[in-house]
């Protein structure tokens, strides 16, 4: 039987249910709230007069500053780097003068060393190394260029991309994660609509760097325009394809995405390369393309500004180092008083503690949630309704994991596979007793790690 699917004339969410892929267990329907921004083109936000650029915007070793107070810097100039392999350099997002190299508060409340630069408004660029024909660059040159550009996983994790492009095991398939299953966020959606070709070139570069023969872009079915754009962009390449994914949270979680598209299970404690694949985010792929084609460093990104307490929600192309407050002001300010402000998506994103905290490379969105939208833990007694067990995409028992972790019974939680939790937060979301399940589980993981470390010492 042949299914002919056309995305142009009808709703793919309904038509193509038969070919939509998904992970087999758990998951849930959560509200999308994407309609506020998913139809609006990306808007370029003017650079602020002062940027605050953290020297650590990634998982791994922090950078050492390579500029001093008073130095003139250009846009794209490296201002911090590290000799460690797992690290990524940082670059100036404006041209201007270094005002300070000092500790500043990030949006999440943590303090870190930052380079503060006064913008001279000229946007003078450093001359980056351009690679004309992408097909002729070697794998090593791609990794080098990606490293020099300071590219990190832009979906949220912030893992240095050049490390990912150097997998210790053979890899046959690259997955581009276009699921964007977090509510409100639409930056990847808009990028797929507006820059599908660039993303495909970035995907080819990742395939080249890792030696993978195939590339698949996974997109949730609620983005029909992105699906048709990307399908058009991959049409001429046999080795590339688009996988339409069911709208189901957490479809974009790495392990669930791999299961849905390739039907492979990453072993407990393992990484995607253990099952022959590497997963990259949409924005990251585009950044790789820009680094190779134009020598552009990772100093700006698209950020979704949304939530019920924002006057005019939209996607902005923002310089790294811009205070988050400026983004909201650019979108018309707050509608009433927001109850909570969040970095990233509402399911997994940390709360914003300081609105003056800067935009960083892995910030996919900032949300101002109204009183009606925002909810928090209330911790009524567990009535064992099993909704968390049914929802867990990993097959865990979050009710017990949460309880053990909260009571400090880390070993008991470990026996129930505490460490396999991917922290998608769906257990807390579905809990009718509003228990802080995922918060306790995170605490349990930290507690377990601390206990293990103590045992090693003694």
């Amino acid at each position, binding site marked *: 039987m042949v299914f002919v699917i056309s995305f142009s004339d009808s709703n793919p969410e309904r038509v193509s249910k038969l070919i939509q892929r998904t992970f087999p*267990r758990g998951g849930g329907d959560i509200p999308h709230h994407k309609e506020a921004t998913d139809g609006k083109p990306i808007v370029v936000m003017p650079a602020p007069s002062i940027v605050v650029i953290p020297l650590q915007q990634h998982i791994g070793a922090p950078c050492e500053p390579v500029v001093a107070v008073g130095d003139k810097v250009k846009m794209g100039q490296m201002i911090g780097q590290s000799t460690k392999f797992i690290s990524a350099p940082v670059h100036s997002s404006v041209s201007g003068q270094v005002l300070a190299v000092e500790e500043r508060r990030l949006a999440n409340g943590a303090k870190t060393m930052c380079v503060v630069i006064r913008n001279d408004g000229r946007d003078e660029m450093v001359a980056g190394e351009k690679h004309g024909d992408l097909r002729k660059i070697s794998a090593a040159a791609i990794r080098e260029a990606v490293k020099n550009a300071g590219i990190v996983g832009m979906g949220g994790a912030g893992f240095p991309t050049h490390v990912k492009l150097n997998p210790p095991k053979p890899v046959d398939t690259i997955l581009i994660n276009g699921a964007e299953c977090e509510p409100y966020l639409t930056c990847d959606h808009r990028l797929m609509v507006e820059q599908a070709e660039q993303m495909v070139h970035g995907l080819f570069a990742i395939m080249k760097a890792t030696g993978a023969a195939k590339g698949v872009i996974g997109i949730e079915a609620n983005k029909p325009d992105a699906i048709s754009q990307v399908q058009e962009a991959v049409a001429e390449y046999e080795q590339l394809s688009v996988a339409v994914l069911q709208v189901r949270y957490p479809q974009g979680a790495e392990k669930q995405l791999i299961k849905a598209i390739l039907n492979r299970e990453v072993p407990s404690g393992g990484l995607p390369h253990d099952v022959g694949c590497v997963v990259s985010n949409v924005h990251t792929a585009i950044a790789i393309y820009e680094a190779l084609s134009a020598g552009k460093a990772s100093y700006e990104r698209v950020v979704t500004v949304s939530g019920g307490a924002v006057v005019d929600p939209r996607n902005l192309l923002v310089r790294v180092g811009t205070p988050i407050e400026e983004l909201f002001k650019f979108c018309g300010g707050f509608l009433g008083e927001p109850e909570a402000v969040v970095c990233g998506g509402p*399911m997994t994103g940390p709360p914003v503690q300081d609105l003056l905290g800067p935009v960083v490379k892995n910030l996919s969105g900032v949300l101002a949630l109204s009183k009606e939208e925002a*909810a928090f833990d209330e911790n009524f007694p567990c009535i*064992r309704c099993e909704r968390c067990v049914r929802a867990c995409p990993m097959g865990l028992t979050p009710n017990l994991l949460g309880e053990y972790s909260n009571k400090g019974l880390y070993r008991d939680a470990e026996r129930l596979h505490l460490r396999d939790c991917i922290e998608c937060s769906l257990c807390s979301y579905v809990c009718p*007793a509003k228990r802080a399940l995922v918060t306790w589980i995170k605490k349990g993981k930290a507690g377990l790690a601390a206990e293990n470390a103590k045992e090693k010492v003694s």
Partner: protein
Amino acid sequence: MDDLRLLVSPSPHIRDTDTTEKIMFAVLLALLPVVAASIYFFRWDAVRVVLLASGSAVATEAIFQRLRKRPVTVADGSALITGVLLGLSVPPTLPSWMVILGSAFAIAIGKQVFGGLGHNPFNPALVGRAFLTASFAKAMTAWTAPIDAVSAATPLAMGPAVSRIPDLFFGSVAGSLGETSALAILLGGIYLFYRGVIDYRIPVGILGSVTVFALLAGQDPVFHLLSGSLLFGAVYMATDMVTSPVTKAGRWIFGIGIGVIIMVIRVWGGFPEGVTYAILFMNAVTPLLNRWTRPRIYGQGVKVSE
């Protein structure tokens, strides 16, 4: 923006709109057709018993929590459910003081001594019912035929020859208040299923295993399904979230186990009705079922490639 006070709480920042209270309210709503049927068939006795049982349950919970210096949580509706369930599972002629005592026992011993909502291993209403049956065996089996108030044996004691299936279905038979009308129970059950409060696995497991068992034993399965407190227990008692397993496989075993025990008691046991004890027994096994039937975890047992 400078003086903005932000709520700093960990993710997730959004939550499903369903709450414990809403779930409890849904159960109460689902009990309405059964309460209505019991009032239709037993008139003022039904009103008296259900009101006394609910009032006693709520009061006991409040007094107990006050004595333990804990927040009084009767507003969550769980004690009210226990009271209504207990009221519906006793005969309409039960003396008022016994109703009050049974309901107080259900909450105090069945629920609060274990720590309150969510911590009780046994269904509190069934604990109350078992207590009443053991203490006041005669009053608890003084079945009255509906409306005309002539004492009668429960159909289970008489056997299928004398009972008419339509009477069993609509409820015009002798029995406990809420157990007589299968139609009302099914209405409530369908609502609870639709509302996502109960899992079909438990009632289907019970009714399925009873049917199979009855057929194997050469008895009329329809009579067994519609008589006694089987349907009432399968829909409202066995499905209690707190005291039933949390895994899908565990729920199948739980339901089938209840059905088999009911039939063992009905076919070979010394008294006609076994639903209370069957569910209580399987409540006791629930922690083990939870342990034995944990779902397969993603990535467990998968080999790392070289």
